[in-house]
């Protein structure tokens, strides 16, 4: 791969297509266990990439991203389990509810930056988790809520392709946003809000919009994930999951398009190998993420780029 990508940009697209084709062929040669890992990996690709859009491109380091996934999952899950609504109809409702909550939280945080925003979103996330855990009648608390699959009979292979298509859709959308005027506004706001405002950028609107978009994407990912697992527990909106998403993004490369994808797939695969040593892996990932944030702010992608420009 080094030889192909060393000189020009074009072979990178070729590499992308080859990787994608290989990935799409997974169900042909992967066992059920690793297929499950791949599906979970795709969920995390969506989570990390959409969180990166908010945190890596507008600088709003929210800790409520897992909470938005939980909102998506529980909304369509409850609608299906309690009201018999087909998940395919519950899915857009889950996205909408997550988007509205994104609007509310984004507006609440508009005068905040840095650690205050992080703490406020963290508080929001924990409140939501506590509510979901305690409203046993509706959510069945830690017992978990049983939900039907997205459509038809349960099938891992179908789920894999659904999640793959969803992840590609999310990545395509993020790419479009980053290359649009909105993407340039995101980066301007992250770099310097005062200067951006002095050039006519509506900073408040841009920041809230980022919350809404990222929230909706997390709601989408969470809803799909819930119907794949067919059992939704408060783990989906826990800080454990949040920190895993954060570690994936930071280790892969925050503020880069590829970083969160690489980070999510890499850490999800790695967790499968080190899970046997107990549930400490999130702690370890957190520590590694801290070191990466300090010494290689652009993560694995940044290191790779440095390596390439060095040779």
């Amino acid at each position, binding site marked *: 791969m080094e030889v192909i990508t060393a000189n020009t940009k074009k072979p990178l697209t070729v590499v992308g297509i080859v990787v994608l084709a290989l990935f799409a062929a997974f169900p042909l040669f992967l066992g059920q266990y690793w297929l499950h890992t791949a599906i979970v990996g795709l969920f995390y690709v969506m989570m990390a990439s959409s969180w990166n859009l908010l945190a890596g491109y507008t600088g709003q380091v929210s800790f409520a991203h897992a909470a938005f996934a939980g909102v998506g999952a529980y909304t369509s899950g409850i609608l299906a389990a309690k009201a018999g609504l087909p998940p395919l109809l519950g899915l857009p409702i889950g996205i909408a509810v997550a988007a509205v909550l994104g609007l509310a939280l984004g507006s609440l945080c508009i005068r905040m930056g840095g650690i205050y925003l992080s703490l406020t979103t963290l508080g929001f996330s924990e409140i939501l988790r506590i509510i979901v855990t305690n409203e046993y009648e509706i959510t069945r608390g830690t017992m978990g809520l049983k939900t039907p699959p997205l459509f038809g009979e349960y099938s891992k292979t179908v789920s894999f392709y659904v999640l793959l298509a969803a992840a590609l859709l999310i990545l395509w959308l993020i790419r479009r946003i980053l290359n649009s005027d909105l993407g340039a506004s995101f980066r301007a706001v992250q770099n*310097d809000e005062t200067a951006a405002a*002095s*050039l*006519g*950028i509506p900073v*408040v609107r841009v920041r809230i919009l980022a919350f809404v978009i990222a929230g909706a994407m997390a709601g989408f990912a969470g809803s799909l994930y819930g119907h794949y697992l067919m059992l939704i527990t408060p783990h989906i909106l826990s800080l454990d999951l949040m920190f895993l998403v954060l570690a994936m993004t930071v280790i892969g490369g925050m503020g880069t398009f590829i970083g969160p994808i690489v980070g999510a797939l890499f850490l999800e695969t790695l967790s499968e190998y080190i899970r046997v040593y107990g549930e400490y892996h999130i702690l370890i990932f957190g520590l590694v993420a801290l070191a990466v944030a300090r010494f290689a702010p652009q993560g694995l992608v940044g290191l790779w780029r440095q390596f390439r420009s060095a040779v």
Partner: protein
Amino acid sequence: MSLVVVDHVSKSFGGLQAVSDVSFHVNEGEILGLIGPNGAGKTTLFNLVAGAITPDRGRVRFNGLDITGLPPYRISRAGLARTFQVARPFLGMTCYENVLVALIGRAHPAPDSERPELIRELLDFVGLSGKESFLASSLNLIDKKRLELARALATRPRVALLDEALGGLSSIEMDQAMGLIRSIRDKRGVNFVWIEHVMGAIMTLCERLLVLNQGMLICEGTPADVARDARVIEAYLGAPDAGD
């Protein structure tokens, strides 16, 4: 016609009266100088006009529109641009992207097809030819100021507020910058209010000066008038009896 009318504007920070009952106007086609000792309230006055802070009392009108209390982005879109005392380019973005943001921020964003040309033209104009793809963080001080000026011009302003455009520049760079400001006024019809500590420059470039001291407007007139004014001399040199 007066493009900007500042009408009895005041602002205090806690107990400190930073700007106190200041009124002035900016005429079509002029470069208006704003001088005063450190801490006189010059930057605060800019912040009040550009909407970064809201006055306690008084109004600001621009182009016949009351802009008091409007958010900065609305004021920018109305045609009033500003630069900062310490340049604030988007450090993590290229020169090209820095100017692009200003084209996007316009009330009617520049069409996609015209952008590359517009950006290159603006960067050429301020003397940043060939640096489109340079990160703003890699520029030296004068180039950062140039970039900020290109960005402000990209908003297509009627009036631009320049906060110490020459601070930290060598005398050759100062001459270049002054020529640039004059040609922007002549070729692009942009009017300037210009804060500057470099007296020689401001005396040659401005037809009219305002002098601020301890938040108050103490003098207004031609550079020659201002240089003779007893209160101005006192403000800059201390009380007249201090030397006795």
